[in-house]
């Protein structure tokens, strides 16, 4: 084990002076991207805040059409997938390739499970006519003229988030293939860390979406 760690296993790009510089630059770039992601979702959070302030009664009533149990299940699924991501990095740091692969597979499985739950939620809303704008056809809600506002925000926020989860699946499949190929070592695992940062942000956004959409009354 010791001689593995002492050998040269870090692919240093020729425009960097030191491996530390390369790793730090990658992290800084990823964090800059994450700030733009926060502002992208930020616009939707602003619209949520404004419409909730102006139409509290609508939000209070319409959120009851969401199943908080499914939302809670998806919260736990995403939190667990964040854990498996850090565990995969932890395993990479110790050169335990099998554990990296297991944790990445678990992450992908969680991401797909999240999307499957979301699919059932969406199809239930489609059937009930709980849709944005002119497509809102649900007759059981008491203020159909205004309730579509909530579902417009619901579908925009969870849709954009679900799209990010889908991208996350692609990223982790790519990371899994690179792990199997043997690209990563105890010295070089920066792509795992950067993919992990993206995934944690997707998790954090859901941490806010879950109470704001499913639990507010």
């Amino acid at each position, binding site marked *: 084990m010791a001689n593995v760690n002492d050998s040269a296993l870090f692919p240093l790009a020729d425009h960097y002076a030191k491996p530390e510089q390369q790793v730090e630059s990658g992290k800084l770039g990823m964090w800059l991207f994450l700030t733009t992601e926060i502002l992208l979702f*930020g616009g939707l959070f602003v619209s949520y805040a404004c419409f909730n302030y102006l139409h509290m009664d609508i939000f209070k009533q319409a959120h009851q059409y969401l199943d908080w149990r499914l939302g809670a299940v998806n919260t736990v699924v995403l*939190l667990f997938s964040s854990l498996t991501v850090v565990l995969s990095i932890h395993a990479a740091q110790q050169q335990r390739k099998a554990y990296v692969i297991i944790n990445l597979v678990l992450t992908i499985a969680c991401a797909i499970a999240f999307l499957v739950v979301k699919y059932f939620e969406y199809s239930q809303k489609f059937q009930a006519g709980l849709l944005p704008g002119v497509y809102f056809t649900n007759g059981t809600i008491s203020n159909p003229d205004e309730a579509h506002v909530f579902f417009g925000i619901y579908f925009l926020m969870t849709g954009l988030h679900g799209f990010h989860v889908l991208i996350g699946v692609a990223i982790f499949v790519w990371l899994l293939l690179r792990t199997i190929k043997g690209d990563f070592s105890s010295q070089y695992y920066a792509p795992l860390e950067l993919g992990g940062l993206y995934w944690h942000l997707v998790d954090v956004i859901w941490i806010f979406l879950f109470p704001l959409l499913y639990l507010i009354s």
Partner: protein
Amino acid sequence: MSNTAMVKGPKVHPHSVWLYWGVFLALILLTVLTVAITRHDFGKFNIVVAILIASLKAALVAGFFMHLVFDNKFLAVVLSTSLVLLALFIIFPIADFATRADLDSVETNFLPRDQRVYKYELDHPDALPLRPGLQEAQRDKLIFMGPGEH
């Protein structure tokens, strides 16, 4: 694609795995707490409590899973710039909505005298015959109307 050369990488000191499991456990407990609390009705404070707990969970994820606590503090500065901007984006429209009615009533109280007469006539159409042209002016929004009238 740049050329790479294999060199000896930086020395890594992995954290204990129990740190990550502990953070995960805390996140699950906070999720259960959010659900338990919001099932009770705290009225207006529901949303405040929910956002506070969500912020605590986000801080745990960012601090430990995203390594902000251990990494170069400049990354935390980069993150806070977007959080400050996001706070401004949310605070200003809400402050606007929350204070709009007050501004309207202030303006109504300080209407010029002749407009107040016009307003009285509009509010009490039976009291006096409407001045010629007043309804047209109202339609064209030439006359300021108080809250709830426009």
